């Protein structure tokens, strides 16, 4: 069905600008409006699955005007962003009562969602940069929202590193415009196919990988993440770790490397090396942490390494085979992409659930230090149950969703001959098991300390959102087992990545119809 695509950006933007009009007395009205906006985004995202569309803004035709593109990868990420933001917004209806200035928080949250939707839908490289900046600036403000000591320091560090990354991306866009003469992604890829990669364009590609890699927190560029994610309020940590680093970082790298520039052997190896470094470094650094949310933040770095590894491995297989790729190699590459993208969606759901449970624990007990907690299993039953579901899912225990994505990645690595990659994946999964056993042991089992005798379970909207995400964790395994769901949701996204440079031909054909 043909939706007007800008509606995904217009709904959160309009709601965000209506909200600051409400003063503190009408907080309830503001909260209800914001929740309506995010729920309507979920409905729209579900109804846009499976359609491919090019929307030209202002009726200016393609190389002259800006266009929005909806294809398989975009609709997968739109769905992930909408679901996680609906859950986080529902959670923050009760959690943000601790802070003053709640309507401003809701306004910034909706601006961040509008920015992420714009990044995912954009078909023009400068439009992608503008929406990237909108989402980033809103997230810098949200990380420092409580204005305590640690939060301001974390927000400043995040902001400096994020601004440097955005400047690299803008410099890369300037180089691309200078060398190809167009800003539309389809026309840029056509010009690169015709003329080959000049020195300026290779430098621009390097700048893009560094800039977007810093937004995605890959390992040499991860220094902001362990400070920013613990200091943010819990629903914002869930959004940052669950969708922001993926929509701004991994999606942008995939779009630019696969559809605009075309993947080569060097880029495939660079992505694989970055993925493996992230996985191993994140896992080792997470095991020694005693702060609950800091451990979860390092675990995010590690899990994102899986996604980049999957994408890089598939790209390497395609680049090695060249233009005459056999059906068997194409199926290996598709399997790698399927594993990587499914792990991306899974991680969005269960990592945001983990951050929401840590927020619930923090609101009840008042502390994030694992050494000061213990035996909360009796006092916080729902929180404990959902945290166990999410931990089992991230570790990879069979009926939950995390098991399937790791299994697909291991099978794909073994089939295509990269046995050492499969060994690294299994080893890091063991490290993930260790760190989540530590969380369960220290936070929920053991004996209840003296000063925490009076904690009670949190009720209301926080409970509903946590239970909703836990059900999704269990049900998402069906996405890959049932062929009809897989063909509708995951396979179009995989097809976008395996098509590669044919993206430009598809877009120009769709626009001229």
């Amino acid at each position, binding site marked *: 069905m043909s939706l007007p695509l800008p509606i995904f950006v217009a709904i959160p933007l309009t709601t965000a600008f209506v909200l600051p009009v409400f003063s503190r007395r009408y907080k309830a009205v503001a909260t209800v409006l914001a929740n309506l906006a995010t729920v309507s985004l979920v409905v729209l995202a579900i109804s846009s699955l499976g359609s491919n569309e090019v929307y030209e803004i202002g009726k200016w035709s393609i190389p002259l005007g800006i266009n929005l593109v909806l294809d398989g990868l975009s609709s997968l990420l739109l769905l992930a962003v909408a679901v996680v933001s609906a859950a986080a917004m529902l959670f923050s209806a009760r959690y943000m009562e601790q802070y003053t200035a709640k309507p401003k928080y809701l306004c910034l949250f909706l601006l961040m969602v509008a920015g992420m939707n714009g990044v995912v839908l954009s078909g023009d490289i*400068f439009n992608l940069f*503008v929406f990237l*900046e909108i989402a980033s*600036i809103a997230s*810098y*403000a949200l990380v*420092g929202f409580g*204005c*305590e*000591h*640690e939060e*301001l*320091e*974390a*927000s*400043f560090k995040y*902001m*400096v590193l994020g*601004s*440097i990354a955005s*400047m690299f991306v*803008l*410099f890369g866009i*300037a180089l691309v*415009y*200078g060398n190809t003469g167009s*800003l539309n992604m389809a026309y840029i890829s056509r010009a690169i196919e015709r003329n080959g990669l000049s020195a300026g364009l290779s430098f621009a590609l390097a700048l893009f990988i560094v800039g977007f890699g810093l937004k995605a927190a890959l390992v040499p560029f991860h220094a902001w993440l*362990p*400070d920013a994610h613990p*200091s943010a309020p819990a629903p914002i940590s869930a959004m940052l770790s669950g969708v922001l680093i993926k929509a701004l970082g991994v999606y942008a790298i995939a779009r630019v490397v696969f559809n605009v520039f075309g993947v080569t052997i060097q880029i495939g190896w660079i992505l694989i090396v970055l993925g493996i470094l992230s996985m191993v470094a994140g896992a080792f650094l997470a095991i*020694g*942490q005693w702060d609950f949310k*800091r451990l979860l933040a390092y675990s995010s770095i590690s899990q994102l390494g899986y996604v980049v590894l999957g994408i890089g491995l598939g790209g390497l297989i395609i680049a090695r085979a060249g233009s005459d790729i056999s059906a068997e190699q194409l199926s290996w590459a598709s399997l790698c992409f399927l594993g990587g993208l499914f792990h991306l969606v899974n991680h969005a759901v269960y990592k945001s659930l983990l951050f929401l449970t840590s927020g619930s624990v923090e609101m009840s007990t008042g502390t994030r230090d694992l050494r000061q907690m213990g035996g909360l299993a009796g006092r916080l039953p729902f929180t404990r149950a959902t945290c166990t579901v999410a931990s089992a899912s991230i570790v990879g225990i069979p009926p939950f969703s995390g098991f399937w994505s790791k299994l697909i990645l291991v099978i794909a690595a073994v089939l295509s001959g990269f046995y050492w990659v499969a060994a690294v994946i299994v080893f890091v999964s063991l490290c993930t098991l260790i760190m989540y056993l530590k969380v369960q042991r220290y936070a929920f089992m053991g004996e209840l300390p003296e000063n925490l005798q009076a904690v009670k379970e949190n009720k209301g909207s926080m409970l509903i959102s946590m239970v909703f995400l836990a059900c999704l964790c269990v049900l998402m395994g069906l996405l890959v087992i049932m062929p009809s769901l897989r063909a509708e949701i995951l396979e179009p996204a995989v097809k976008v990545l395996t098509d590669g440079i044919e993206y430009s031909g598809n877009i120009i054909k769709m626009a001229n119809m």
Partner: protein
Amino acid sequence: MPYALCFLLFVIGLYCAVVKKNMVKIVIGILIMEYATNLFLIMLGYRTGGIAPIVGKADVAGFEAQVSEMFVNSCVDPLPQALVLTAIVISLGSLALMISICIRTYERYGTFDITQIRRLKG
């Protein structure tokens, strides 16, 4: 040649943002990087001997008020100018946020020195 000087300015801004210890100097380093990028974008559109891309009464020719051929062939590329306008607005928003965080940090810690503001470790 002018492009190399733009890149040199970018690297100077990057050095300033990475090495300096005062928070306000780091912010100024980021600002220099933004100036360098905007300058690079504008210089990309230059055409030797070109005129400014503003349409006046003398440039409109023909019955339907179309822009004349001579104007289109001799004016500088206006697209990078629109891009730079957008980039300046974005950097203004980002700068306002950075300065307000610096002021709040000064209120909490009493100093602008980033080596003293190191409570988050590990």
